């Protein structure tokens, strides 16, 4: 096992002793953690949270094992004080999977459990709102089960046999027209059918509607749909809002409009083929996505990443953080009504960084830069008419810190920004942890939790930087945390540029196009600009992953959107959403 990879090992030895009835250690080769009986799950999870202190449920996901006719639900819990996590699983019968819901203990599980219900058909007992979340409601089947086939399905695993050596080109839509693999629910009639999600969503929030806000005004309650096509939703994202006058009474996010079954694609792909697909998740931070995926697979492979590659990785990832935060701040201001000027000032600096990415990796946003055991290319000798190292030194030592200071001067003390942001969308620390909020959202609520410090990966333990927190948990604090974090990222970049070894390997071993990954499971996570990005990978020792799950920070952070928006004006909803900073490529996957 690589010393620098994040580890989810070192479980407390006493968990199985604590619950002799329902807990056994997971002894499958390459697996870790415990298998908990469904009947004991609530009790065990309660003890894990309250007695052992694993108060942060990072990821919940499912894995299909048709051979043993089981669907496994995998939980990864961590402590916000830092350190390795605890991994526990529940196995359910594949024909009728039922698992108790953990939403009561960890509200952050709400959307993730809905996703498992959607993708695997696992019913969660006691879940407050168990509906499909990414697929549409008339959809039949469970797309992540191993026996499910998509339209235009060709083969279970890539590479497809039809490509070589007898590659007769054909376009899939011509040879396999949409139809053969499309399933509809029984008795489905497209003309008569009304989407259940719609009625369900209105039913859910309707009882709370009614007249009067208790004050002196007589107001009507009104349901408003913001999105999916609405500029302030940052993509195709929809919020169903119940308003009392202008005040938000309830809010339900609706997502999945950009769903492409990324995880199923990932399970058809070979391990290496997934790397460019991760670029398309949070497309503003492709380098970070590469990094997280590389870490989780490297952990299984046990590769040691060469020194220079580690430095290059950290440099790229920290520059990405600056890009992403610049974008977030710029477009938060757009959401506030300061159209384009702050956004353009912010992304102007991003332009320089993207130029650097393009010169090094070959693409501005879809970088596809990292490989298992290193990176794909070393720095180029020159960038335009300048030596690359000179360009980098100039960028991180002068230009970026100046730009951040300027942005700070431009916005931070603006009375308009302050009056729109201070006290809006307040998220207390306990709630932030309970809802599994991550990244700047969590740290703006005063929780000192940054994976680079709490569970160091790569070579972050070598650099001097602060974990930025703010106490109030409102939109303004999230803005300030992003400004602070950019400064810290610049500091890290300065140390990287100064300390980077010249020359040396950038990839461990020979470049391999078909890596075999030893059997086992691995959860690699990094501090993405948006929050904790995790990849849960299960390998069976072959060239394609058995399970490839993305714990997307934007997706999990949306769980608390409704909670945070309640009681605010409808105009603030847009700002609160902007301060959470979502990217729909990652939310919908």
């Amino acid at each position, binding site marked *: 096992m690589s010393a620098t990879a994040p580890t989810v090992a070192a479980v407390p030895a006493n968990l199985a002793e604590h619950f002799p009835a329902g807990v056994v250690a997971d002894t499958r080769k390459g697996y870790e953690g415990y298998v908990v009986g469904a009947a004991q799950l609530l009790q065990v999870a309660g003890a894990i949270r309250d007695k052992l202190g694993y108060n942060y449920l990072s990821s919940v996901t499912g894995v299909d094992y048709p051979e043993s006719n089981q669907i496994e639900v995998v939980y990864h819990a961590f402590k916000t004080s830092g350190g390795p996590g605890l991994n526990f699983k529940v196995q359910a019968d594949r024909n009728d999977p039922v698992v108790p819901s953990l939403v009561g203990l960890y509200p952050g599980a709400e959307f993730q459990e809905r996703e498992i219900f959607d993708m695997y058909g696992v019913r969660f007992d006691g879940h407050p709102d168990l509906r499909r979340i990414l697929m549409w409601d008339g959809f039949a089947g469970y797309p992540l089960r191993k026996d499910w086939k998509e339209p235009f399905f060709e083969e279970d695993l890539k590479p497809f046999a039809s490509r070589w050596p007898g590659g007769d080109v054909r376009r899939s839509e011509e040879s396999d027209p949409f139809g053969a693999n499309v399933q509809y629910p029984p008795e489905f009639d497209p003309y008569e059918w009304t989407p259940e999600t719609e009625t369900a969503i209105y039913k859910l929030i309707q009882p709370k509607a009614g007249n009067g806000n208790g004050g002196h005004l007589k107001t009507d309650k009104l349901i408003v749909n913001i999105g999916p096509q609405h500029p302030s939703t940052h993509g195709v994202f929809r919020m169903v809002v119940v308003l009392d006058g202008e005040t938000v009474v309830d809010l339900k996010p609706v997502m999945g409009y950009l769903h492409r079954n990324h995880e199923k694609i990932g399970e058809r792909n070979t391990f290496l083929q997934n790397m460019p697909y991760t670029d398309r998740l949070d497309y503003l931070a492709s380098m970070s996505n590469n990094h997280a995926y590389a870490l989780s697979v490297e952990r299984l492979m046990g590769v040691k990443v060469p020194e220079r590659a580690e430095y290059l990785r950290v440099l790229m990832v920290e520059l990405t953080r600056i890009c992403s935060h610049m974008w977030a701040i710029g477009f938060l201001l757009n959401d506030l009504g300061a159209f384009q000027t702050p956004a353009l000032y912010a992304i102007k600096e991003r332009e320089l960084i993207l130029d650097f990415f393009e010169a090094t990796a070959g693409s501005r946003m879809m970088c*596809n830069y990292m490989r298992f055991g290193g990176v794909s290319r070393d720095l180029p000798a020159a960038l335009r008419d300048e030596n690359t190292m000179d360009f980098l030194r100039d960028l991180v030592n002068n230009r970026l810190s100046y730009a951040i200071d300027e942005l700070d001067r431009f916005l931070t003390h603006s009375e308009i920004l302050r009056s729109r942001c201070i006290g809006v969308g307040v998220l207390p620390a306990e709630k932030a942890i309970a809802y599994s909020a991550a990244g700047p959202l969590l740290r703006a609520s005063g929780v000192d939790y940054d994976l680079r410090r709490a569970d160091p990966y790569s070579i972050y333990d070598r650099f001097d930087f602060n974990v930025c927190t703010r106490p109030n948990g409102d939109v303004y604090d999230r803005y300030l945390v992003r400004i602070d974090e950019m400064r810290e990222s610049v500091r890290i970049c300065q140390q990287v540029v100064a300390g980077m070894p010249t020359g040396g390997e950038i990839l461990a071993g020979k470049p391999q196009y078909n890596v075999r990954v030893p059997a086992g499971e691995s959860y690699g996570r990094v501090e993405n600009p948006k929050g904790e990005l995790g990849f849960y990978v299960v390998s069976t020792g072959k060239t394609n992953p058995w399970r490839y799950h993305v714990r997307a920070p934007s997706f999990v952070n949306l769980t608390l959107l409704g909670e945070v928006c309640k009681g605010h004006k409808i105009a603030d909803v847009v700002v609160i959403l902007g301060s959470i900073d979502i990217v729909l490529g990652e939310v919908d996957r």
Partner: protein
Amino acid sequence: MYGSGILAGLGVTLKHFIDSYVDDLKFLGQRYYNPASLNQRQGTRGKGVFTVQFPEEKLPTPERFRFIPFLLYDEKPDGTHDDRCTSCGICAKVCPPQCIWIKRSNDPVTGRPVPQPAAFYIDIDICMNCGYCAEYCPFDAIKMDHDYELASFDRTSAHIFDKQKLDKPVAYYASLRPTDYAAEELVRAEEEAKKAAKKADAASKAAAPVAV
């Protein structure tokens, strides 16, 4: 003072406004359509706006920029083309969206596979420009292009590039990526030399009288 924050912010806007004219003065009307100015405008020293007057003026693509693969051939002295591709199929196997189709050719007499593609297709609608084909090709036979202006009126047949459309001379590649080309040629020359030495070695061994 209430309002001082807004005023300070407006000061920043004013500074940006003035800065956008400083470059103009410096280049005296030569700010656009001028490579020297473009480097200054788009670099770390650029203080004004980053605007590029597309399409009259285009951002130069860096050497490593990747957009849609193409196939390389060496030109023989007699003018015929010598494909570098041996139809080994590694690019088709590594391609993440599986957009490469290769038909291997067989010897008409023996029926054995011949190291040459009979047909080679890339569906550019499916290609995700990841660059794996170029990265993992052991023969430097497939490389990523720089030509990103591919819009066409027909998305069916026009977007499936066949071998004729994909084939480009090595000289074209050398002009796109001079640094990579030089490095690769160095490695190729070394390998050639090694092979030649081995051959010579074997030949001299064979020619030498066998000691009894």
